[in-house]
């Protein structure tokens, strides 16, 4: 039912994470099982201790964006602009050399805009009307990151942003694939972006989320370039992997949990590489459902965010040898659940 016809090719990917800028440092950290998480400063953790976060503290916006422009962008938009630029380059796409109306962007974002919203409102609560900043308000919307990236690179195709718990990026990737499948776009940039701010950590601390998701919060951005395989071949692009199916269910209905899992996994019983995304308690019902030669949990290494599905898919695609079968399973507490099937390389 959910197999894309034909399969969607991954022709580029890029990411920013706690491991550093680019796919390579994150892949190295994952392969060597070295955690990039660091202790959260005690003053942010509201009296609790022992929590870690995955700040992308090696990222410098001005390495990618002129300083004056960078100042106008919220951190999530800076991540997105930088990562989309790297992903386009990885796919061999040069601005001005593609039809702008045929390339779009679909991003997931867990907390996009909230940091700006907090700063904007703080100005008002502390100083009244004179404290309102018209510069801050536009980037309080969650779609700011995707939109700023679209403005930067002239992406005039479909443009959409999802917030859907720990499956925000997976929601965006499904939409991107569908837009390609039905011909709304030839190429889609798809993935997720999230930022971490002290105010957010404070909020996580007081609501008990730091304890609940003790494995560590992360930030960054993971973007894939998706297109029909035939389109990629026609323009001579290398195909890193093929995205063959995406299945999802909203939640596992009490009493019919197995039916939901069956719908998610269809007939797949095994794969070569299995990657998980989302908090471990949430993915618990999916553990052991598919046999895998290798199972990885990138969140343990670079921290977990609501929209890290793009980052995980980028790492999975990069880990596959040609012909190897990969599966990414993602889950949020209370749902939704996603299963994304990937094949390494280009069999053609």
């Amino acid at each position: 039912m959910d197999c894309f016809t034909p399969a969607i090719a991954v022709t580029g990917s890029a990411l920013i994470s706690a491991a550093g800028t680019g796919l390579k440092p994150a892949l190295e950290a994952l392969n060597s099982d070295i955690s990039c998480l660091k202790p959260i400063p005690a003053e942010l953790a509201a009296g609790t201790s022992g929590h870690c976060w995955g700040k992308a503290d090696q990222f410098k916006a001005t390495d990618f964006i002129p300083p004056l422009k960078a100042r106008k962008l919220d951190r999530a938009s800076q991540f997105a602009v930088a990562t989309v630029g790297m992903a386009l380059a990885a796919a061999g796409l040069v601005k001005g050399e593609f039809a702008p109306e045929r390339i779009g962007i679909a991003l997931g974002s867990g907390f996009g805009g909230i940091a700006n919203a907090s700063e904007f409102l703080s100005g008002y609560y502390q100083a009244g009307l004179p404290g309102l900043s018209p510069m801050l308000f536009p980037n309080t919307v969650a779609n700011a990151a995707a939109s700023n990236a679209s403005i930067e690179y002239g992406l005039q195709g479909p443009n959409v942003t999802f917030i859907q718990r720990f499956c925000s990026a997976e929601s965006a990737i499904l939409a991107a694939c569908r837009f390609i499948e039905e011909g709304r776009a030839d190429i889609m940039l798809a993935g997720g972006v999230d930022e971490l701010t002290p105010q957010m950590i404070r909020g996580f601390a007081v609501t008990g989320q730091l304890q609940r998701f003790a494995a560590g919060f992360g930030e960054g951005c993971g973007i894939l370039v998706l297109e029909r395989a035939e389109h990629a071949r026609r323009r001579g692009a290398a195909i890193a992997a093929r995205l063959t199916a995406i299945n999802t269910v909203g939640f596992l209905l009490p009493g019919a949990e197995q039916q939901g899992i069956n719908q998610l996994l269809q007939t797949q019983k095994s794969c070569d590489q299995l990657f998980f995304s989302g908090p471990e308690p949430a993915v618990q019902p999916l553990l052991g459902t598919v046999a895998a030669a290798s199972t990885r949990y990138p969140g343990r290494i670079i921290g977990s965010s609501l929209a890290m599905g793009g980052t995980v898919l980028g790492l999975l695609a990069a880990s596959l040898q040609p012909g190897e079968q990969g599966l990414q399973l993602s889950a949020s507490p209370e749902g939704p659940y996603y299963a994304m099937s990937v094949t390494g390389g280009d069999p053609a």
Partner: protein
Amino acid sequence: MSLKRIAITGLGTINGAAKTVPAFQEAILQGTSGIAPLDLFDVSPFPARIGCQVKGYDPADHFTRRQISHLSRTDQLALIAACEAVAMSAVTGCYDPYQIGVCVGGGVGGMLHAEAWLQGELSGKPGRPGLLRTLLPDCSTTALAHAFGFAGYQGNITTACSSSGTAIGWAADLIRSGRQQAMLCGGADALAMLTFAGFNALKVVDPNPCAPFSAGRQGLSLGEGAAFMVLEDEQAARSRGAQILGYLLGYALVGEAHHMTAPEPSGESAARVMNAALSAAGVDPGRIGWINAHGTGTPLNDVVESNAVKLVFGPRAAGVPLISTKAITGHCLGAAGAIEAVATVLALNAGIIPQTLHFRGVDPECDLDYGHAGSRATDTRIALSNSFAFGGNVTTLVLGSAALGQEVC
């Protein structure tokens, strides 16, 4: 892949002009605006103190105390509107629960409550952490899915003012592509200080009720509310004997890639999304009877949208009324597209073109038919509904009346 026609089998809404679908139909037919002084939070420091708030709303009329503590104002409005839509459709139990999904277009989510927490933090009097529990707009999606037992697709689109228009289009796509058999879709957004102060900071709020496409307009009037639809494959809906209330014939979404807040001035991007929606629906532009405009009432938006209509319809543009129902409901941001889609279906079925309220005089740059003279009868069966947003996220829905029946577009 079969090209299924998507039927609308349930409608629901609660907004500042009406708390049910029948009341909303009456407000549209009569041209009754809900814009009035706000009292949800302190607006006294601002020059514009009006908006379209859901007045006389008591959560206890709808929810238990425990539910109220777990649901933001946005979530509550979403549940009320969705209940009406689901009840009208009688869809519950007709499909495998994993084949019915939920897609919501959101805006600020529980920001109103999170603002109270932030205020407490800043003043050194920490608020209840529970105020942050429902901050994200996807809380509405999950609340609806669990409330109705719809275990299929779950997604929340957040593209500012086009969120719920896009959510409806995407929901239809999930059915058309065979991924789901039915979808509950729409949007919800409550008033909050963030958006009220934000649009005031941008100086685009009219101190008087908004006057779309009119001379002397100074901006928008903010509103709040929720609207939902139940969508199904037409043949499946007919097979189960559902009443078909209208059709979602097609949609399109594109990025203007121009500016975070300003629309692309020539109207070419807005025209592109309308043309793409017509093409996706397979509908000839000659069949469009009127357009439910984005029509915020800001000086720039109304001119750009008028230019776009001229680009799409050419010499016929003056004969395609461009109506803004935002003068009735206020601009409900993330919920606007869904509220306007419901308004469009109600007007199509009632056989009227609604009026655009609060006319203050002719603007020479807005030289089309905006329905300022009042509502009028029509036999049109297809209309467009536009939703344009910050970031250049623009969406158009192509909606058909129930009378379209089996007719081929």
